[in-house]
């Protein structure tokens, strides 16, 4: 086994220095060494997007990178998205639009959506779908995920009634 390499990575606002094997994937480093199990592994071929995190603000599939490649960089995971106990707008929108069922794809979807909106703050429905192409969801059929991302782009503010206001919209087919 090749010897370990020391890396320093800022993850969700905390700086970590660790010795890692060169072959350790970033996702394994996050999950197994840092206990950040919010980032999930759904495939071994870089296809499902469950492991998506941000590297210096841009989405990457953390199963596609080695931990050593993150040395000196800033990583944000789903666990760093809520700030001071307040959900990020996308997290809130996923909840409000029922954009998750089993929730396994959800962290990756939220991270990818955030990156997508950072690049294109006012995407069309087609642009959102294209932007999520690398993230698979087996439960939702994507419609409510698209609606969630669109609602953030449109600046929808959600109250806390506990009852969805969006249900009628998704049923009649209007996304506006």
């Amino acid at each position, binding site marked *: 086994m090749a010897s370990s390499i020391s890396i320093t990575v800022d993850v969700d606002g905390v700086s970590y220095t660790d010795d890692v*094997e060169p*072959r350790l994937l970033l996702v394994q480093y996050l*999950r197994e060494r840092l*206990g950040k*199990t*919010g*980032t*999930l*592994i*759904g*495939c*071994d*071929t870089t*296809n499902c997007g*469950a492991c998506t995190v941000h590297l210096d603000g841009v989405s990457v599939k953390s199963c596609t990178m080695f931990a050593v490649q993150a040395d000196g960089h800033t990583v944000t*995971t*789903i*666990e760093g*998205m*809520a700030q001071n106990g307040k*959900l990020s707008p996308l*997290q809130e929108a*996923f*909840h*409000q639009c*029922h954009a*998750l*069922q*089993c*929730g*396994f*794809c*959800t*962290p990756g979807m939220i991270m990818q959506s955030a990156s997508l909106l950072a690049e294109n703050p006012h995407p069309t*429905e*087609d642009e*959102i*779908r*294209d932007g*999520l*192409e*690398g*993230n*698979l969801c*087996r*439960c*939702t*059929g*994507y*419609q*409510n995920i*698209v609606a969630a991302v669109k609602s953030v782009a449109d600046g929808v503010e959600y109250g806390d009634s*506990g*009852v*969805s206001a969006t*249900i*009628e919209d*998704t*049923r009649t*087919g209007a996304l506006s």
Partner: protein
Amino acid sequence: MTTTTEAAGTGRAEVGKARLRKEDNHLITGRSRFTDNMVLPGMLHLALVRSPYAHARITAIDVSEALASPGVITVLTGADVAGEQGSLPNAWPITPDQKAPAHPAIAVDEVAFAGEVVACIVGRTAAAARDAVELVDVSYDELPVVLDLEEAATDAVLAHTSLESNRSATWVFDSGEAGTGKPIADALAGAEVLIERTFHQQRLIPAFMEPRSTVVDPTGEQIIMWSATQVPHILRLMLALTLGIPESKVRVIAPDVGGGFGGKLQVTPEEIITVLAARHTGKPCKYTETRSESLQAAHHGRAQVQRLRLSATREGIVTGLDVNLLADMGAYLGLVTSGVPILGAFMFNSIYKFPAYRFECTNVFTNKAWTDAYRGAGRPEATFAIERLMDELAVELGMDPLELREKNWIKHEEFPFTTVCGLEYDSGNYEAATAKALELFDYDGLRAEQAQRRAANDPVQLGIGISTFTEMCGLAPSRVLGALSYGAGGWEHAQVRVLPTGNIEVVTGSSAHGQGHETAWSQLVADKLGVPFENVEVLHGDTQISQRGLDTYGSRSLVVGGMAVLAAADKVIDKAKVVAAHLMEASEDDIEFSAGAFTVKGTDRSTSLGEIALATFAAHNLPDGFEPNLDSDATFDPVSFSFPHGTHLAAMEVDTETGAVHIRKYVCVDDIGVVVNPLIVEGQVHGGLAQGIAQALYEEAVYDDAGTLVTGSFVDYLVPSAPDLPHYITGRTETPSTTNQLGAKGVGEAGTIASTPAIVNGVLDAVRHLGVKDILMPCSPSRVWRALEEAKTAGTNTTGGVQ
């Protein structure tokens, strides 16, 4: 919103409301509890050595090099555990003479599909275990493989050397013999029109997003298993039976489970192996599959060849249906493998009044991964066949396909209706669902556009696909399952506990993996007991907490599990009434319960459920002989299935130059009876549609001639992503079920069942005038293009041109 108004009108505050899910918070913030997140002190990790051959004899296994590899604790082979691993269970022997090979978790001397486990490495880390997989030296003698279903049925090559035939069992239903209809032979002989077709249900892979994972802790008095399973209760029982451990010594926990779709309705070799490894090492062990292993070795679904004959009159009245199936079991029988086609047997007649029906299915072994339940299990296969046939009949008669369906379906006023299979459909309104679907779809407008495109010879043609359907939900009445030789009942259990604070704990035997039980059950109980939604806590998925249950599959959660919850809540009310009468010094008959309050009739004397809860907890002043506390249990076994139905319409654009298929518009109207949470229902419909559309257009498990899975990763197995799917337009009608208190029918499988035929009928409708008669699923661009080319050639031939 309409549903809320209706709900308010019937005095229901919560049922019908689009409540946001209680389950979401931890999932959107990354505090999930999926099995692979679990870490236990001293935990060891497993990696499995799998057969590269589809059929071979194992002649020797040398593990010495693997054992010497750094970080390897032990290696287990089939021979090492032969005496203790049992045979994996098949709980549904469909006939008394059903044949099945023994199915050890680790193969002992023969492997029957590529991916079968031949050894298990136990390592200190996952990487150490995985590194040693290559070091296990297995010697194989290759055996002939049989992969094609029809070839397997001939027995020319045997999938198992231990069997004399590949035929596992043949199961027959004949309406003439059963006395539920006329003899099929008469119908076929007297047919004015006879449609004969063969359809192929390709092999699909459930492809839940969370790979299967199991952690077993053997260090306490009990063996505790966490597993990504849909069926913790069944799994516990089967572990006990398979491994000879008393049930009380096994506890199964299904924490967060990342999707199932039938794919996690199984007792897997991997789960058994993890228990064996934990017992051998005395340490907690974890196994998490890779995606490639999952695609290769978790069970597959569908895989049938359907030969059908449909007889009808010239006016379009169907007189009989004869179904002959070959069903691919793959290499082994899983938990309910053999019963899947039988579930379909009752759905080929769908929503129609067919007077004669015969169904015969032969279950056949091949050298492929075994098949078992996949979303809809048997019913999507049946619905596809009949809805394709109805379209073929319509074409034959030159009739509008909707008009043909209307002529044959059960009219609203004819319910309850006993079908040619002997099932009683309690309620339905196919007219209403279809009318609403047509309205949302703009049927006439799209038909006009279709005619224009045809006339203009547009390279992009438009087709309209129709599918109407019903399904059998709420598995199930136990005595019916018994009559079908299923090894268990179909009841569900629940407990409602009223805590001293007045808060409610609901324990359900139904185990969720994304369906939103916690939210829906809270709504049910909030209405029933008149407590706030927030004050209800729902517990599930742990056999120690939810002591009895039959878990989650077949859209049974609400219509069986939910009813059990309501029944338990009813008992709570009955008990509380006794105490209320005692405390208010009134007669029990004078106590009325409404919205959480017990009132003495005709007075203003009243006490709340919370006050009674505290009184029964303190137990200072209770009627003589009254047991303290208000907790109640109920087990619900429905009198019948429930039968949701609907009409789906798809407008399909087909590029005749490239074969590319595009869904221009998709409309579905589902009638699932009374809806508890429209938000959850909507999500279930969307997800179901995605899976049904995927069968029509994208997915297929493909093997090469040697029996190696070619679609062994998400690169080749095409689970659709967001741009592959349309924006669905959904609507509902509500015809309450009359066989349960709530009037609910079940929704989990509806979208999957109805969408596949709607899409394929639409694709064919777009190109039928060009001579295309059928296209195999999935209707990929290359298949569609080839079908168009072949039709062209055939067309030239008939006009005497190119030979």
